[in-house]
């Protein structure tokens, strides 16, 4: 299990290959990558991601341990960036490995749902007009009810 909270960019392909190579006995590997999207009306200059250093690693580790146990994962990876990101840059990724596909998919979705609403990150959209904190969506909070 690897959890990285970092300012640096990461290479999705290299991370996916390293993760898959390190797993024994898995039949299914799922990755999710979140990418900075431009605004619907365009004009996004950057996404600034703030986090709570003392709490972030701890909160993600708790979520990751729950996922590992609940779905019997072979392995799991979480990378989450903070700082200033340009449109098109990868914000974060998770990877899960399990014997069968249902467990790998479900665990990845569970991790994403919890990272969205329970890991201490806050996003701010920077445009020429200034900065706007991204509001949490009711749908993201509601997504936790599945689990």
């Amino acid at each position, binding site marked *: 299990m690897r959890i990285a909270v970092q300012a640096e960019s990461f290479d999705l392909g290299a991370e996916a290959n390293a993760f898959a190579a390190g797993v024994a006995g898995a039949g299914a590997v799922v990755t999710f990558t979140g990418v900075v999207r431009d605004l619907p009306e365009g004009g996004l200059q950057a996404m600034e991601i703030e986090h709570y250093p003392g709490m972030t690693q701890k909160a993600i580790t708790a979520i990751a341990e729950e996922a590992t146990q609940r779905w019997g994962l072979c392995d799991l990876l979480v990378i989450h960036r903070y700082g200033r990101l340009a449109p098109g840059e990868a914000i974060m990724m998770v990877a899960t490995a399990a014997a069968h596909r249902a467990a790998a998919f479900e665990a990845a979705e569970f991790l994403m749902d919890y*990272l969205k609403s329970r890991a201490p990150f806050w996003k701010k959209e920077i445009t020429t007009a200034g900065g706007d904190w991204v509001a949490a969506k009711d749908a993201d909070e509601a997504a936790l009810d599945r689990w």
Partner: protein
Amino acid sequence: MMQVLYFAWVRERIGVPREAVETEAATVADLVADLIAREDRYAAAFADLSALRVALDQELAEFDAPLAGVREVAFFPPMTGG
């Protein structure tokens, strides 16, 4: 003395990312009332508690949670990770 941390727009409204606070507050809600009484910038940040979350010693908590033994309190809006 208690370390109080602020993140995102809570930090912006209060104007500092963290500060040491001397308080007799028994619960998080008491601490909030205490801060609001001090200066307008706190009143502005804490105007709507339903829009805020709190962590005690880096664990999510409720606003009626007791502060006994707590060293670090953090206030922030709902998280938007992922």
